[in-house]
């Protein structure tokens, strides 16, 4: 529990004078002042203005490289009329009052844009009202700028610090006037991020960098064959290693799973790691060592003919398909992947007595850290303090806080803080992984190429069923068929299906979730239809599939323009286009490739358009898209998790390679931000359409259609 002094110390607030604290009621329905009593400071104040003038903005969205550390508070700062230089940012720690604090689903900006601007605007209005009251002036004669309220006729002014106490006593306006975007000073501009100087000088603190007095280190022996039971272990060699203090047998908790594990705790990480390698553990694989990806993939192919759960049906697919003069069908195969952020999973935990737990961690969500811990360890959520540090990448992996539960379980057996660090091998092999999805595609076309019938059938295991260890449910079919029924394309007689396949390996969200695999099948197949229709793939999409205006059509038109689609290419070159709209947003690519021998392919140029509606920091958007393209290129041409004898054969970057600098072409990013109510996400939409645009470009250049990822660019 946080008392006043504890909170002030942790948040670095001086506690001098009084504050205006402002935030949302826990239900998110009502904006409230946290009043003039400093003890109430922890009641959700996004903004804290202290009498001496310090302005603090709380950031609920963890930063794993997407720039939220500043871009989320920037939405408050804009309306509050303070410059980013005047603001101190503090990361929230899963306090109930802040509601959801998980960065995921490309939701940090789009999910908070209205809410946090309203917080800032309400505080600004209260400060102006307080100043007007002191001057006995009309509110309309007052304005705020850079944390000062001015009285226009006289030029008199008060700083926010001087006004905070008075302002805190005023009623909170529930519908404050938001600024006209044309008056924005911060939003929409390329402002530099405060974490960059820290990250180029080694000063940024990530979870793995936390150091506490008396801290010990832990390395954990897990079994790479999932669901294995620990029979026994021999620690005689481990205990002879100097520095090894203790072994802790516990269970790794991931979703509903409990996996046996043994931690070696030592006074250095090196000793703990050596101790782990020296440990001889006997595992009972429970038959799971028979699992092979090759056989599993064959079983997915065998299921392609099965009738699945219908997730979308319009018209009469069967009749239309069978009577169509032109029929085509294709099968696409996408593999499992590991997230592989550069910072391996780790967590530091310390128990203060038996019932107070403190956690330091790189995670995508402080609230989810608490949830995952309380699900597995008997402790009330309010007794857990979570400190969120910078994350060395996340990509979905850090939504699942099994490492935090592990560290808490190990530290419980010691009376000092323990930092647990996974090796890269564990990070690669232990999941949860991106689900493999296979897609059976069918289309019927008229003689002129017009679509008459369309089907995308997904065959795959599901995320929820593997994480929660239960059979498929109808809810899963929608997340495993994400986006396939909601593209803007005008496809009559569409019937999409989902065929569920059991799997015992935990699967989970990987940057852009199921769209990261399904878009490849969907958009390459649209290309196959265009080819069959004898039409240019861009013209087929624009002229045949998108006759009505839509955001997708606008996106493709922009792509056509910026990529110079109609300009002829040199011999041996090819262009490909793809777009995908899903829960996170909308983006599209044109990729240009060249091939001199119709076998080895070089990527020449990448054009990307992302439709956001509203943009907060265009430079960060460009970075996110460049990054998504790089990650998508790795996923398309480099790596897959392949199980053999029950475990991932991929262990580290030598056999799970990532794209390197010499393999990454230029990416030209264009943002559509024409305002309007709809705000789309940034972090994920750059991923799904990349691989299909590349595959379609390769077809244009070489005549070879790629239907299985990953493939080798040097030998398509």
């Amino acid at each position, binding site marked *: 529990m946080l008392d006043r002094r504890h909170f002030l110390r942790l948040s670095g607030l001086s506690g001098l004078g009084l504050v205006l604290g402002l935030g949302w009621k826990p239900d998110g329905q009502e904006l409230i002042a946290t009043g003039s009593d400093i003890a109430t400071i922890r009641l959700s104040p996004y903004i804290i203005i202290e009498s001496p003038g310090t302005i603090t903005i709380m950031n609920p969205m963890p930063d794993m490289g997407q720039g939220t550390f500043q871009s989320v508070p920037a939405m408050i700062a804009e309306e509050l009329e303070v410059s980013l230089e005047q603001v101190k940012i503090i990361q929230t720690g899963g306090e109930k009052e802040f509601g959801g604090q998980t960065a995921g689903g490309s939701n940090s900006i789009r999910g908070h844009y209205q809410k946090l601007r309203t917080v800032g605007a309400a505080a600004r209005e209260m400060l102006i009202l307080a100043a007007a009251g002191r001057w006995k002036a009309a509110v309309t004669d007052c304005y705020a700028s850079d944390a000062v309220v001015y009285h226009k006729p006289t030029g008199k002014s008060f700083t926010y610090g001087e006004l905070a106490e008075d302002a805190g006593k005023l009623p909170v306006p529930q519908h404050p006037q938001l600024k006209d975007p044309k008056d924005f000073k911060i939003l929409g501009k390329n402002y530099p991020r405060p974490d960059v100087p820290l990250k180029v000088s*080694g000063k940024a603190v990530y979870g793995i960098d936390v150091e506490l007095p008396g801290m010990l280190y832990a390395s954990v022996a897990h079994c790479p064959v999932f669901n294995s039971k620990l029979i026994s272990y021999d620690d005689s060699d481990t205990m002879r290693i100097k520095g090894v203090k203790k072994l802790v047998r516990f269970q790794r908790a991931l979703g509903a799973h409990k996996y046996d594990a043994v931690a070696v705790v030592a006074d250095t*990480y090196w000793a703990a790691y050596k101790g782990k390698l020296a440990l001889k553990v006997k595992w009972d694989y429970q038959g799971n060592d028979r699992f092979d990806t090759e056989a599993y993939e064959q079983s997915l192919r065998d299921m392609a003919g099965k009738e699945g759960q219908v997730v979308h049906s319009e018209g009469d697919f069967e009749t239309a398909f069978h009577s169509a003069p032109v029929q085509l069908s294709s099968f696409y195969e996408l593999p499992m992947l590991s997230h592989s952020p550069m910072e391996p999973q780790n967590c530091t935990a310390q128990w203060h007595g038996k019932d107070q737990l403190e956690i330091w961690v790189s995670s995508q969500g402080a609230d989810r850290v608490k949830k995952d811990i309380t699900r597995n360890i008997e402790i009330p959520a309010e007794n857990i303090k979570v400190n969120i540090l910078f994350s060395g990448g996340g990509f979905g992996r850090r939504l699942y806080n099994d490492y935090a539960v592990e560290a808490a379980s190990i530290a419980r057996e010691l009376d000092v803080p323990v930092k647990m660090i996974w090796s890269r091998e564990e990070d690669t092999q232990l999941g949860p992984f991106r689900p493999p999805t296979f897609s059976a595609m069918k289309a019927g076309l008229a003689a002129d190429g017009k679509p008459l019938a369309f089907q995308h059938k997904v065959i795959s295991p599901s995320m929820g069923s593997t994480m929660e260890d239960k059979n498929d449910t109808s809810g899963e079919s929608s997340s495993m068929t994400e986006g396939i029924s909601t593209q803007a394309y005008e496809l009559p007689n569409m019937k999409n299906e989902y065929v569920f396949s059991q799997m015992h390996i935990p699967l989970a969200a990987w940057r852009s979730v199921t769209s990261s695999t399904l878009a490849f099948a969907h958009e390459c197949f649209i290309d196959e239809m265009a080819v069959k229709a004898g039409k240019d793939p861009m013209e087929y999409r624009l002229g045949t599939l998108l006759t009505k205006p839509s955001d997708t059509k606008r996106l493709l038109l922009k792509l056509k323009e910026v990529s110079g689609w109609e300009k002829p290419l040199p011999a041996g070159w090819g262009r490909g286009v793809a777009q995908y709209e899903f829960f996170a947003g909308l983006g599209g690519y044109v990729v240009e490739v060249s091939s001199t021998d119709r076998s080895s392919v070089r990527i020449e140029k990448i054009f990307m358009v992302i439709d956001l509606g509203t943009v907060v920091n265009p430079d960060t958007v460009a970075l996110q898209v460049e990054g998504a393209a790089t990650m998508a290129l790795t996923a398309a041409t480099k790596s897959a998790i392949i199980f053999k004898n029950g475990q991932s054969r991929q262990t580290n970057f030598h056999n799970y390679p990532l794209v390197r600098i010499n393999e990454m072409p230029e990416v030209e990013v264009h943002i559509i931000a024409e305002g309007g109510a709809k705000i789309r996400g940034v972090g994920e939409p750059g991923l799904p359409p990349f691989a299909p645009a590349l595959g379609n470009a390769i077809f244009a250049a070489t005549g070879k259609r790629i239907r299985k990822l990953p493939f080798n660019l040097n030998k398509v």
Partner: protein
Amino acid sequence: MDLPLSKNPCNPIQKKNKFEQSAVSIVNAKKILLMAAISLTVNKKQYHIDADPEMPLLWAIRDIIGLKGTKFGCGMAQCGACTVHLDGEAVRSCVTLLGRAEGQEIVTIEGISENTSHPLQKAWIELQVPQCGYCQSGQIMSAAVLLRENPHPTDQDIDEAMMGNLCRCGTYNRIRKAIHRAAEIMNT
């Protein structure tokens, strides 16, 4: 599809996992971890530490000396997050045994400039290179050696020198531009 590594031309760096191997061989020989007094010079400061001479330099820098800017990424010289300078050369500290580093000048990211004033750091800030930032210490340490040896690198020079440093966030285009920009700053 699973490419055999030797045939995968996109995977130029295929060093053996020395870290794992050394650790395993010690265990196999049933040797007890030996401690020795080792003196290290890091960022011009002398440190006398008592540690296992087979401990990789990375862990001594991070956990004993307490400089956290050098990162752990793979433990087998595949990702470059742990890159430091050893007598002016860029090395992967995760596979550099302490015994080998003794008596040499070690420079980490914390030691390449005062006040973040190295041209590379300035260029990195100007072009807002980092995303998560975890790999960037290593990127800058590799780039610093490149620029010292080659003050006017071409794109290809940059690619060759920086191939050993992975970035999962995908900041490669920015890194390339920032190295050119740093060269410009250095040469003016």
